[in-house]
């Protein structure tokens, strides 16, 4: 992975209610804290729960003209439907993280499955699956520093929710850094 990469394009795909738009916003806010230019867009259906929902984030050092992701660096898919939609990118060497709790296991060089939802549930907060998987993504591709995300989480959450989300972020980054296979 290019350490001095100037531009990152990210897709976070899943189902309405998984908090992916929020994690897209938080990733963007973290990048802004680092002085980057960010565009975040989203696409979802009419249901507030369920249905394909996705957030796109572009992080750059200069003006972002076209606002949609065209050459993703990493894609997160938290449902079978989302994985099916984006799996063709694996052939283009795009890193794809998917959730083995909700999608069937696959094999492929760029396909990495983690039971994000189950781990979040084990941590006691299913709702933190978005931050947990974001932690794994930034550990894999250094789009933003973990400290920046910590600052964003601290700004957004208080008390128990803050604690849980920080723990989710830590657990997510550990998945990659330590390569733990404890599940």
């Amino acid at each position, binding site marked *: 992975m290019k350490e001095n990469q100037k531009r990152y394009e990210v897709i976070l795909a899943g189902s309405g209610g998984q908090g992916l738009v929020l994690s897209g*916003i938080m990733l*963007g806010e973290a990048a*802004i804290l680092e002085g980057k*230019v*960010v*565009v*975040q*867009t*989203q*696409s*979802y*259906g*009419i249901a507030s729960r369920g249905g394909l929902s996705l957030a796109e984030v572009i992080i750059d050092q200069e003006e*972002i*003209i*076209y*606002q*949609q992701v*065209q050459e993703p660096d990493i894609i997160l898919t938290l449902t079978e439907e989302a994985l099916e939609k984006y799996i063709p990118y694996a052939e283009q060497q795009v890193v794809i993280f998917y959730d083995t709790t909700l999608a069937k296991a696959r094999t492929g060089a760029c396909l990495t499955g983690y039971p994000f939802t189950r781990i979040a549930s084990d941590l006691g907060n299913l709702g933190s699956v978005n931050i947990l998987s974001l932690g794994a993504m930034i550990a894999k591709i250094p789009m933003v520093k973990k400290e920046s995300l910590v600052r964003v989480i601290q700004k957004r959450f208080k008390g128990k929710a803050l604690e849980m989300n920080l723990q989710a972020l830590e657990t997510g980054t550990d998945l990659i850094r330590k390569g733990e296979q404890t599940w």
Partner: protein
Amino acid sequence: MQGNQAMSEGAIYAGAKFFAGYPITPSSEIAEECSKVMLKIGGVYMQMEDEIASIAAVIGASLAGAKAFTATSGPGFSLMQENLGLAVMGEVPCVVIDVQRRGPSTGLSTKPAQGDIMQLRWGRHGDQSVIALCPATVSECFFMTVKAFNFAEKFRVPVIMAPDEIIGHMRENFSLPTPGEVEVIDRKKPSGSPENYLPFAADKDGVAPLASYGSDYVFHVSSSMHGPDGCSNNDPANAAWRVAQLHRKIEMHRDEIVITKTFSAEDAEILLIAFGATTRSSRAAALELRKRGVRAGVLQLITLWPFADKEVASLGGRAKTVIVPEMNYGGQMAGEVQKVLGGGADIRRVNSYNGEIITPQDILKAIR
């Protein structure tokens, strides 16, 4: 900051103190933001029973002296047309934000479109004129909303902000300007005695001073044909003068109202004419063409109405090919471009109407 939020912030920066609305996707964040902020700034947030009531409340609040606005999308915008006509005829300053989504009717409520272009201009019956603006960035969402209020107040006319869903929901870096940094215009108030006040006697700039309901100035606002005093007047000469004045007050300030931007358009042999989100696809396509050695550029229409005829004639007249990408079926804006450039011009339409954005690649396909 999100586009919708930037428009709320722009309204508040411009001095808006009244929001009445009926939340509808993809504009709901504007109502949400106003419900939080209006009370803090000593303003009023009113959750209405529908969009007809929303625009009625906005008109009432404006006549009472407040800068007032509402936000909606296609289905609600349709419901507002009748009272918007009243605001045109009564010369009531107000701002309506129509975050465009794919129709017809309730259509695809969460998906973008640019299908209201002609409705913005002609939605009301009876030969009238309004101003419509369309931002393409979060920053433009803010600054053009301030402009929308300035135009509404200065020209006593409804101004419609018409971003598409993509721009309304998109988030970008944006820091709010400090108070005083951006020009804010307030409506002209009468200074003479209340007995002699004529609420529809236009000054040389085409606009009459507007008093506030509840003040010493007691006046009548009617949707029917009226004379300078606001009272019913069926004289043909008066009717001709009134209809012309409603148009002319916009026409005579055309150069101030029509806002466009250009991107390497001066020497363009391929000119892309775009507005809203498709501006961004067009700019990306033009950059790609420049890389290939093709002289391509973009004319961005921020003011949709009145139409940027001079700018289109000047740049479009020099180009060999003009491409108009827009998220509607028939090319609503392309038709206007055609009117200006004539039937012989090479004008290519790129349209999407499936709720998906036009990509730079879609535009490149129009050039062989």
